[in-house]
């Protein structure tokens, strides 16, 4: 376990959406934290609420229809959710920054990349236009974009997918943030480019002792770079552990299923096991444990109560009544 | 006309290609909207007026007494009299027919023509697309109204059919471009590729797979444009290149009203009828577009 300072601590975060067909709870009582120098992976399928939780705490979620029902997100002890928009803007974009999945649509198509990076310096540091542009070029160089000085004036569509994601990174890291939230940063990229970007993030993280929250659906990515992992399913955290331990001995049947469905040399020639069924629609989450309809361990009792997230070992929490047992009744929230 | 097309085109562009409501679902969604129901009822009244004007008035619109010329309302003559001393209510009622006929037939015709040409242009790039698109470029480059006037002016006996025909001739490029662009986005979808790979003949692919999935924007544009057709017919008749006397139409009533400004009722009644009709068409079109919008369907 890393022992750096806790930078961002999310507790009991719940987010709901108002839809024409009623209210939907996308994130339900989620807690996690990230320390300086740590990489925390939030793992889950689409619709598990992994992106919504980070968008809610940074205030970029469309509200309405989204709504934060409860919870706190403390950056160095200050609650981002409770503070005013103005105060939050001094932290989000400066101390906490974000990288998104689809760099083509996440960059403004009609502004040069240099200008978009320079905007960070101009708004948060009040730099002059020329200084900001010079810094932007330096940032492009830091994320290893060849001929950075020349390319500052290029537009997003003139870069390849991998290079564009580097631009996104340059923009996010321009102000030396404490926490980087990377929302599926490599999903849209080729496998080789994916590895380069992840490596680059790791390198820049080590230089700055930055906390990284990596949102992904790819267990392979988690295994490669994350120190700790939070597994989400249907808006709930179902397992929380150090990556190595989770991979070694998954506690929750969902994590187990995900691990089982990873292709590996051992399974060569066999049919790849999968988790039966499909993730539930947020509009029709099963009663009790949301995973029970797809779970091979499910028993009658799973339908009656939502399994609490319980500590099963130091630094390991899971939400499964079959696995946590009745002996460990100590709720960790 | 082109202006409405541009706006509607942009608003309709977002309509789902690939996602279609069943007719019954669409109807149910529409019937939930009170403004849609109200406007449909109003239109039904206009349609009835066009089909059987006798239902609404027993007075013969051509039975005139010059002595009552331009008189105001009186018992049995709620709209007063026109310059010839004919009952104006009967005239306005009988005037519904050309407006309804021209707008409905021309809109349907433009929908079919623009739809098929757009399908062909979008699905067969190269020569077919080139031919259709360049023709559209030429038609776009001349003011449509000028061509309409020039052609209609050279036809001595103008019937509803001739007016519709000329509108068809020059009215298709806008819809064609919209259809073409939606076909472009649909033509390489998996279901089309699948059909093509199993040897389904092109025309059948177009009819069964491409058209149903690409028609929503054009449909919305067409329904929103029907009201414009009503106005166009009236404008042509007003300019003297539309319907000719003795046919009764709102456009010719405007023409007369323009010359007799001191008798406002000559203008007010046809204006009220024509506006109610075009606004009804517009609200119905707007409701249909909303119902087809996938973002609102969730």
């Amino acid at each position, binding site marked *: 376990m890393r022992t750096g300072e806790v930078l961002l601590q999310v507790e009991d975060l719940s987010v709901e959406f108002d839809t024409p067909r009623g209210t939907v709870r996308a994130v339900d009582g989620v807690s996690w934290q990230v320390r300086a120098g740590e990489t925390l992976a939030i793992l889950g399928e689409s619709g598990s609420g992994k992106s919504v939780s980070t968008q809610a705490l940074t205030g970029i979620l469309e509200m309405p229809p989204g709504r934060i029902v409860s919870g706190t997100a403390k950056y160095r002890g200050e609650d981002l959710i409770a503070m005013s928009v103005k105060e939050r803007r001094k932290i989000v974009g400066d101390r906490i920054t974000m990288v998104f999945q689809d760099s083509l649509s996440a960059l403004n*198509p009609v502004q040069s990349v240099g200008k978009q990076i320079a905007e960070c310096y101009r708004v948060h540091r009040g730099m002059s236009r020329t200084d900001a542009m010079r810094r932007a070029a330096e940032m492009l160089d830091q994320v290893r974009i060849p001929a950075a000085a020349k390319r500052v004036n290029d537009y997003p569509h003139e870069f390849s997918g991998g290079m564009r994601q580097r631009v996104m990174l340059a923009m996010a890291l321009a102000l030396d943030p404490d926490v980087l939230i990377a929302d599926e940063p490599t999903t849209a990229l080729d496998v080789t480019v994916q590895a380069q970007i992840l490596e680059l993030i790791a390198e820049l993280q080590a230089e700055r002792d930055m906390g990284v929250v990596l949102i992904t659906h790819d267990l392979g990515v988690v295994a490669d770079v994350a120190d700790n992992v939070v597994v989400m399913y249907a808006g709930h955290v179902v397992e929380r552990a150090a990556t190595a331990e989770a991979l070694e001995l998954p506690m929750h049947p969902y994590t187990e299923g995900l691990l089982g469905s990873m292709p590996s040399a051992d399974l060569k020639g066999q049919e790849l096991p999968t988790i039966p069924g499909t993730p539930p629609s947020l509009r029709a989450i099963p009663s009790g444990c949301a995973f029970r309809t797809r779970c091979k361990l499910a028993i009658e009792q799973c339908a009656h109560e939502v399994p609490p997230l319980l500590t099963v070992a130091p630094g390991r929490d899971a939400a499964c009544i079959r696995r946590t047992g009745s002996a460990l009744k100590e709720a960790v929230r | 006309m082109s202006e409405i097309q541009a706006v509607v085109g942009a608003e309709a562009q977002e309509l789902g290609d690939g996602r279609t409501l069943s007719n019954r679902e669409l109807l149910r969604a529409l019937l939930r909207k009170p403004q849609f129901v109200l406007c449909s009822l109003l239109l039904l009244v206009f349609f009835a007026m066009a089909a059987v004007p006798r239902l609404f008035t027993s007075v013969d619109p051509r039975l005139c007494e010059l002595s009552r010329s331009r008189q105001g309302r009186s018992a049995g003559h709620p709209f007063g009299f026109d310059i010839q001393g004919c009952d104006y209510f009967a005239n306005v009622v009988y005037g519904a027919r050309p407006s309804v006929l021209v707008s409905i037939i021309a809109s349907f015709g433009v929908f079919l023509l623009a739809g098929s040409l757009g399908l062909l242009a979008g699905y067969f790039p190269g020569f077919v697309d080139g031919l259709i698109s360049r023709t559209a470029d030429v038609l776009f480059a001349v003011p449509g109204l000028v061509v309409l*006037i020039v052609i209609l002016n050279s036809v001595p006996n103008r019937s509803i059919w001739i007016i519709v025909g000329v509108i068809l001739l020059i009215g298709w490029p806008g819809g064609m471009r919209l259809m073409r662009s939606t076909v472009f986005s649909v033509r390489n979808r998996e279901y089309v590729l699948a059909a093509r790979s199993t040897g389904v003949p092109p025309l059948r692919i177009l009819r069964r797979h491409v058209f149903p999935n690409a028609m929503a924007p054009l449909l919305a544009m067409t329904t*929103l444009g029907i009201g414009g057709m009503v106005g166009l017919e009236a*404008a042509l008749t007003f300019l003297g290149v539309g319907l000719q006397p003795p046919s009764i139409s709102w456009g010719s009533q*405007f023409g007369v009203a323009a010359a007799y400004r001191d008798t406002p009722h000559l203008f007010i009644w046809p204006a009220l009828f024509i506006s109610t009709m075009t606004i009804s068409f517009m609200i119905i079109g707007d409701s249909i577009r909303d119902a087809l919008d996938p973002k609102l369907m969730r």
Partner: protein
Amino acid sequence: MIRFVLRRVLTAIPIGFIVTLGVFALVFAMPGDPLRELAGDKPIPAAVLAAKRAQFHLDQPFIVQYLLSMKDIFTGNFGTTFAGADIAAQLRLRIPVTLKLTLLANAFQWTLGLLFGIYAGFRRNGLVDRSLLLVTLVLLAVPGLVAYFAAQYVFAVELKWFPVSGVLQGFPHSYLLPALVIGLLGFAGLARLMRTSIVETVNADFVKTARAKGLGEQRVLWKHILPNALLPVVTFIGLDLAGMFGGAIITESIFNLPGLGQFMFQAIKLKEGGVVVLLSTLAFVSFILINLAVDVLYGILDPRVRHV
């Protein structure tokens, strides 16, 4: 950029040829003899008729007539109308009328359209937005003819705020009412387009990025949303201005403004092929120029279509 402009002008030439030829053919195909009709019931001496025919090239075969008209247009030798009016002098009188009307109408349309469109887009589902959607729906639906007449009746005949018709009171007084109505009708489309475009851009990913950068709401709106949302509106300019000439025929005849639209209409009625082709060429050239300007402007605003 220069190559792009040149290429566009070159592709416009064949289209211009087809357009003018087509219009000329249509006028040529009109039945009846224009000169005889102009003279009415009076018998014209054969010699006069023949001389007139020669003057207007009416004794030539179709294609020669067309080429001679085009030659006249390009040499600036516009000649006279059948009735004997000097066409060049007519143009000098009439172009300013149509131009003033169009510019004034556009000034109203763009000020109102952008103002309301942007405001409604930024504050969607607010009071302004909801009423705008309703009002513009009605404005788009009301036939132009009805709107012009109603405005003329209410504001000119009854309230006497504006002259009923004609240009005797000069600019801008004589032009205000027609321009206001045209502008108001055009504003509906523009405002709706602007609003729709903004509402769609607001949900774009790069707006999320801008918010994640900790930018203030105003900065996000003006620096990120608006430049992108303006793009579809720019293409609208071309279509809109191109439709102005057709619209001028109706407005100028209702408000009795002696502009190009009225000139065109009279020429069609009198089957003056030469004038119709001249005015069509004028309309076509302005159409091409406007579209060229729009494309260049679009290229400046959107680097993705910038031409090398």
